[in-house]
């Protein structure tokens, strides 16, 4: 067995970047205030010192230009990691992501690859209000050509990011702001977590909670609590949303016959629909003993006030209630 260390989610992200930049000189890192400032969330601490300003490349506040510069450098031999300071800012550079990066490999008949990672902190719970708190994975997921990753632990964050950097496609890597300070065990040695594979974070038999990102931890907490009552909750962490591990979804649904889906993004039009439909499209439908419940954010912009904000997002109580409903 390899040695393990306890590090934060934030450190895990940084380690993945640094190790890959040491391994492959074509990997470089670009974004706003990622040098001396170390990024808005302090992720890139020390990277400017180690790699210098060419490879830790600070940009003007021109997301379209630098996102596209990522694309252009990727198709000519580099492997950029582009940091978008908040995931909400995707809206000012969406064209370069969905109409350019996502489509090039297909539209150009496979003659070119776009090996590029877009790293960006997503989610709410920080009091940052409507324009800095969104979970917009759906806006990437639905676009053929992008891969979408949402890690829930330091171990996954490091392994998935390394896999993303080595992947030859544009990968949108949605870090969870609220998890940056969370700690977890990570091996000393090089490892990757393959894209496209879900992970059962807790085995159970009575009901499946299918989730990802910050909601994994919250769901595990609820599972612990319900275990005391003898309710056995299985928690499936999707980890990669696209390509989606549909087998794992169908398997857990067929096993427990009861499903609750949890995501932090808005429930209406959210990814929960796809997950639920994956089940009801398939023969797992026949195993279901109850409606599939989805827990997601309310249909409203994220309000500033902390009490209102908390009301907006899934809570342990809401998850618990949904589980009880399907039992």
């Amino acid at each position: 067995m390899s040695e393990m260390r306890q590090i934060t989610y934030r450190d895990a992200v940084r380690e993945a970047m640094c190790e890959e930049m040491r391994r492959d000189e074509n990997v470089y890192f670009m974004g706003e205030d990622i040098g001396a400032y170390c990024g808005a969330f302090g992720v890139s601490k020390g990277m400017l010192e180690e790699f210098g300003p060419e490879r830790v490349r600070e940009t003007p506040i021109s997301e379209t230009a630098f996102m596209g510069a990522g694309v252009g450098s990727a198709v000519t031999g580099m492997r950029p990691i582009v940091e978008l300071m908040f995931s909400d800012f995707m809206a000012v550079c969406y064209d370069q992501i969905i109409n350019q990066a996502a489509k090039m490999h297909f539209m150009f008949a496979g003659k070119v690859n776009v090996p590029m990672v877009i790293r960006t902190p997503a989610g709410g719970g920080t009091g940052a209000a409507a324009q800095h708190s969104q979970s917009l994975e759906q806006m990437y997921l639905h676009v053929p050509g992008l891969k979408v990753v949402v890690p829930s632990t330091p171990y996954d964050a490091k392994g998935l990011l390394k896999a993303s950097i080595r992947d030859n496609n544009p990968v949108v890597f949605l870090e969870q702001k609220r998890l940056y300070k969370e700690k977890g065990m990570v091996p000393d040695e090089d490892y990757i977590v393959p894209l496209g594979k879900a992970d059962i974070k807790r085995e159970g038999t009575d009901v499946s909670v299918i989730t990802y990102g910050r909601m994994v931890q919250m769901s595990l907490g609820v599972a612990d609590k319900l275990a005391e009552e003898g309710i056995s909750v299985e928690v499936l962490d999707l980890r990669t949303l696209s390509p989606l591990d549909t087998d794992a979804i169908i398997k857990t649904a067929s096993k427990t016959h009861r499903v609750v889906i949890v995501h932090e993004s808005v429930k209406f039009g959210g990814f929960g629909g796809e997950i639920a439909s994956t089940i009801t499209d398939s023969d797992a439908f026949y195993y279901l003993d109850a409606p599939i419940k989805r827990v997601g954010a309310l249909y409203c912009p994220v309000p500033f006030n902390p009490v209102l904000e908390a009301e907006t997002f899934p809570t342990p109580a809401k998850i618990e209630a949904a589980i009880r409903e399907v039992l």
Partner: protein
Amino acid sequence: MEAFVNHMKEFDVEDKTLLEDKEFLRELMVRMMTVNKFEEEAFWLFGQGLVHGTMHLSVGEEATGVGTTAALKKEDYLLATHRGHGQALGKGVDINDMMAEILARGTGTNHGKGGSMHICDFDNGILGANGIVGGNGPIACGAALTIKMKHIPDRVCAAFFGDGAANEGAILESMNLAAAWDLPVLFVLTNNQYGMSTQLERVVKNQDLRQRADAFGFKSYECDGNNVLAVYETVREARDYIVAGNGPALVVEHTYRTSGHSKSDGNLYRSKEEIQFWKDNSPIVRFRKYLVEQGLFTEEEVDAMQAEADKKVADSIEYAKAQPQPVVEDLEADVYAD
């Protein structure tokens, strides 16, 4: 940094009649002091855990918010930035309501739903601050379009933005649109020399941002942004030019932010000396010196202004703290207008 120090001219005013209006001078100083105190207190409350989220202070830049808005009319529209406390207070937002919003109360300007980055006051023409850098430029064009289409006389729409925002496509497109359509937009570029930690010289090759107005074909002005009278005079001139029907204008106001970018700022990208230099030359320090040296006010009178500002802010905190939290009702019912 030298380039910036060069923008700082000797403190003076061209239109000497301004010096006759002592009430006006006093008001400018009280407003700057109010903005300054408001932010320091808000930051203090933040440190105490009483304020949520993030907050961008404009300490050191008080002359830009106050001087600019002093040259605007109440009916003028204004689109503020993430660093907009001074812009909003200058334009006339009620300080109590604004402090209540900072404290996320149900009676705040946004009923607790917006916070520092989204202060609005439609009665005073403040169409909202924006958390998306540069996102306000296009909206300003639209408000100016209303002025134009409805033939409203003597009104402009001011859009504040920073030296960093100047490189956003949204701002650049807006400059061209406003010029092409002769819209009454007042582009107010608060050049505080940094976008977050990034020095202007690292993100543009040509630091003379006025040339962008030249390129798009409209008039520009610049001023020592730490001289509140110079800001006022320059904006007044630009506003006159716009309302005469000449299309948009750009005012570049050179200043410096002595506070950190936001709560997460460790100031690792600049020196203590640099910050100190600008603290010593802050708009309030310089204006005080001028007022006293010119014999317009005594030191004691200026101290009284400070006391007045302090009290306003203290009262606003007391007011805000007494305000109720928003009622947790049906948030989804607030999404659509009827």
